[in-house]
Every structure is written in C-alpha cells, then in structure tokens.
C-alpha cells in the first residue's frame, strides 16, 4: 500500500476558555486514509466530525497528536494547497459570477489569466454547468450552487477533497442526485475524499469506508468497509447488501451511544427507504 493521503495519530482536541477546560471535542483519533479512498465520517450532531475535518485541513489546530496530509504536516499541506474544501453552505461570493467564483482559488494561487479561464471552463463542464458560467449565484438552485462549490474546490487539482455535510441543506431528491454526481466526479478525478455526514444512507452509498464516531468526546468507535460493487447507481440503493451495511452502520452508531433524537429520524428515513426498496 502506498503512503496514506491522510494519517491521523492520537489526535485530541480540547476547547478551553482561559485556563478552564470547556469541552473535549475529539479524543484519541487515529485513522489512515489511502489515496483514492472515499471515507465518510458519521456521527451524531456535536460529535466533532466537522472539527475533525477542520483539523485535517489545518483550520483548527489539534491539542495533541499528529496530522499528516499528503506526507507532510497539515500546516505545510494547507500552505501547499493540497486540499479543497466544500462546506454545508455553498459559500459563493454574491459579487462574482459562477465562472469568477470557480476562478477565486486560481486567482489566490496566482495562475495566469489564460490558464485560469481554460481550467474554469473545464471544471464547469465537469459539474455540468458550462452554460451557466455568466450567471450570478442567486440565480441558481441550491444543488447547482453546491456543484459550483465542488468545481471551485477541485479547480486547482488538490489531492484531497474535504466535504463538510455538503448536501445537508438539500432536499432528499436533490441530495440523492448530488450523491451520484459526486461519485461520478470522484471516479473521474481519482481525488481522495473525506466526507462528513449524518445521513447513514448517504455514507453507505458513497464510501469505500465509513468511520463511525461516538458523541462528545468524539472517538472513532468503528470503521466499516463498504464492499458494494462499483460503479454504484440507483440500483445499488436497493440491493440487500446495501441494507445490511445501513443496518451495520446504524448498530455501530447505537453501540457508540450515537443515536440521539435527530439520528433516530435519519434512521427512520433509512428504514422507510429499505421498506420501499424491499417491495420493489
């Protein structure tokens, strides 16, 4: 096996105010993510999964432990622009057109204008938004805005894509479509993806592995390999193996004490999907 793209060793994160310890967000996190993997971090609200993603991206400093990204310390990796990031909100700049939003990182990286334009066109074609390059963000639907954000994150060809509940604000149907879209992009670009979600079906459908986290202090209680055949499509969501894996993730969450009220609702929706799939 080649060197991992992400290597977390004994990572703790505590938040304190003054001398006083307020919360322990992450406790003893160790995880290796290989090149080309699609790893989901799943856990109840407030379990620190978004914090963990930001620790990988060097947007939050860990209190203890080692974070290696692309074979170097996380700080160095950020300064080298080794990862792209997609947030729950698209975070598009209102004052820029779709095209100029995708160009933003390329401007920061100092690419020359011709190369910027060519690359931007390529990325917008990748997410199927070529004809919307002159539009303003407010003229696009939520799903389209998030695709612009993905194009922007991948524009400078980072080895790693960090996604923080990117489809959490979308309706169920758009979310499923975006899941297929992100899989297609992942298969085409070969980018390693770390994906934070609290949706069990989403995690199972997308991932090569699902890392299940416990409530605060967040620990990785179980890592479940997803052996669903690829390429995955809508039929994958109806296969018996898919339901087994959904159940396995759910049980891991429950064992970790990670099923609060919110997550019961997610599970209920997954079970409903299962029932419908079973009939079909």
């Amino acid at each position, binding site marked *: 096996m080649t060197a991992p793209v992400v290597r977390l060793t004994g990572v703790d994160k505590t938040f304190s105010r003054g001398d006083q310890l307020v919360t322990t967000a992450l406790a003893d996190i160790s995880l290796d993510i290989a090149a080309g993997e699609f790893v989901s971090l799943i856990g109840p609200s407030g379990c620190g999964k978004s914090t963990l993603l930001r620790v990988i991206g060097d947007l939050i400093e860990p209190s203890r432990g080692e974070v290696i990204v692309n074979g170097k310390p996380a700080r160095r990796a*950020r300064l080298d*622009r080794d990862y792209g990031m997609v*947030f729950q909100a698209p*975070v598009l700049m209102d004052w820029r057109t779709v095209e100029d939003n995708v160009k933003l990182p390329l401007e*920061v990286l100092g690419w020359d204008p011709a190369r910027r334009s060519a690359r931007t066109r390529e990325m917008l074609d990748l997410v199927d938004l070529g004809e919307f390059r002159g*539009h303003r963000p407010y*003229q696009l639907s939520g799903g389209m805005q998030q695709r612009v954000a993905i194009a922007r994150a991948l524009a400078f060809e980072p080895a790693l894509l960090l996604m923080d509940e990117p489809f959490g604000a979308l309706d169920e149907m758009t979310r499923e479509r975006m899941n297929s879209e992100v899989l297609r992009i992942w298969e085409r670009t070969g980018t390693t993806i770390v994906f934070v979600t609290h949706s069990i079906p989403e995690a199972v459908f997308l991932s090569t592995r699902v890392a299940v986290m416990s409530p605060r202090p967040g620990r990785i209680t179980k890592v479940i390999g997803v052996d669903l055949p690829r390429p995955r499509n809508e039929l994958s969501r109806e296969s018996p193996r898919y339901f087994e894996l959904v159940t396995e993730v759910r049980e891991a969450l429950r064992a970790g004490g990670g099923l609060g009220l919110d997550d019961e609702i997610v599970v209920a929706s997954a079970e409903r999907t299962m029932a419908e799939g079973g009939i079909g």
Partner: protein
Amino acid sequence: MSAAVQPLPGRPTGAPATGRQWLRRLRFYLPAIVVFVGVIALWEVAVGALGLKVFVLPKPSAIIAALQANWTSDRFGLLPSFRATMLEALVGLAAGTLAAVIVALAASRWVLARNVLLPIAIAAGAIPIIAFAPLANTWFGLTNWFSKAFMAAVVVFFPVMANVTRGLVQVDASAIELMRSYAASEWTILRKVRIPNALPYFFTALKIATTLSLIGAIIAEYFGGQSLVLGRIMVQSASALRFDITWAAILLGAIAGIVLYLGTVLLERLVIPWHASVRPPDG
C-alpha cells in the same frame, strides 16, 4: 438537471429598458407624482383662501418668483450660495467618508485598533456633534469655508465608519475558512472578501451621509461666515422678513440633498449590481 434552474430576471442588469418597462415604471411612480402636484396646488390655493401672511407661509408661486428674482442678486444671490454650500458639503462628505473608511480598515484589521477606536467612536457618535459648529468657526476662521466643510466631515464620519467596520468584520465565517484553506494572506482576504462584503454597508451609510453633510454645512453656516451661502441666506432673509427668499433657499437645500442622494443611488447601482437591494427581482 436543468429542470432545477430558477427563472432568470426578465432583464439583465444594465440593459436598456423597453417601452413597456417605461410604462410600468411610469405607472409605479404616477401616484406619488399626483400626490406631490396635488399638495403643491392645495398649498397655493389654501394660502390665498385662508389669507395667510407671507411670514407664516408664502405661496409656492411666490417662492419660485423669489428664486428667480434673487438667482444672482447681490444681497441674496441664490445660485452662488447654492454652489458655495454644495462645495462645502461635498468636500466635507468626501473628507469625512475617506477618513471613516481608513479608520474602519484599521479597526477591522487590528483587534487592538478595534478595541481602542470603536468605543470612542460610539461614544463620540452619541454626542450632538453639531453643537461644536461655533467652535469650528473659531478654529478655522469664521469666513473660511473650510470650517463648514469640517463640520460636514465630522457628522459624516461616524455613521460611515460604524457601517463600513461592520461590513468588513461581519463576513461569513465559512468564507474566511475557505480563504484560509487557500492559504490566502490577510491582504488577499481583505481585497477579495471583506471589501466586497462591506460595499453594501458603505452605500447604505453614504446615503445617510449625503443628507448629513448638507445639514452639517448649513448649520455651521448659521453661526456666521461669508454671506453667500444657503445657511446665511436663510438667517439673513428671515431677519429681513423676506420669508419668500428663506423658502427659496430651503428649496435649494432640498434639491441639493436629493441630487446628492440620487447620485449615491446611481453609483450604488453601478458598483454593486449584484446586491439584493439593487438587482432586479427574480421572475
């Protein structure tokens, strides 16, 4: 996925309006125009019918006549006064805005500057600053127009600084994280995120500031100085019981305020066509 596309605005920003749109616009403004003309007509008729003396309320026609008669007269020359007051207000507006933006940039960049400047600015903003007008006259010389521009600048400073600081600081936290993920410098974040984010706040403040700059200049003029300025004309004509001229000067002050305001609105449309307050409605 194109089914998810929302309807686009009927007209791209900046494109010329068609005849039908002019008609729609006219229909929109018609009630306001009718009411305005109606009030002026009622005023004209009522003053005559009630036999009001000119020092209580002159007829609109008398005000217009006074405006014409004193357009360039030696004693109450309204045109040179209008120009002089406008110059004071504009210089004050520009200087006050520039100073406010510089301080706001410093306050947004350095926490220490923010902690020192903002409480002082807020406290100073609560002072009825216009009360300093007589002092400004003694500082810069009674007949020096700069004393009036200075007062205009002072009243403009606080709302602009407070608003622009807010616009620079209240940036979506994710946008800052995004820029940090690109290893962008503070300077780059300022140029590419904070300043564009602050522009709508800036224009909101500028609209208030245009009116304030005129108030600052005219009030400062009340306390003395060269005689051909709107504030002096108002004071002098009133004490000479020429209230028709006082009203003519007030009319010019109102026109100056509206012109400055509309200029700001135009500038806003040109600079931030993307903002929700400016862009055409969807659909």
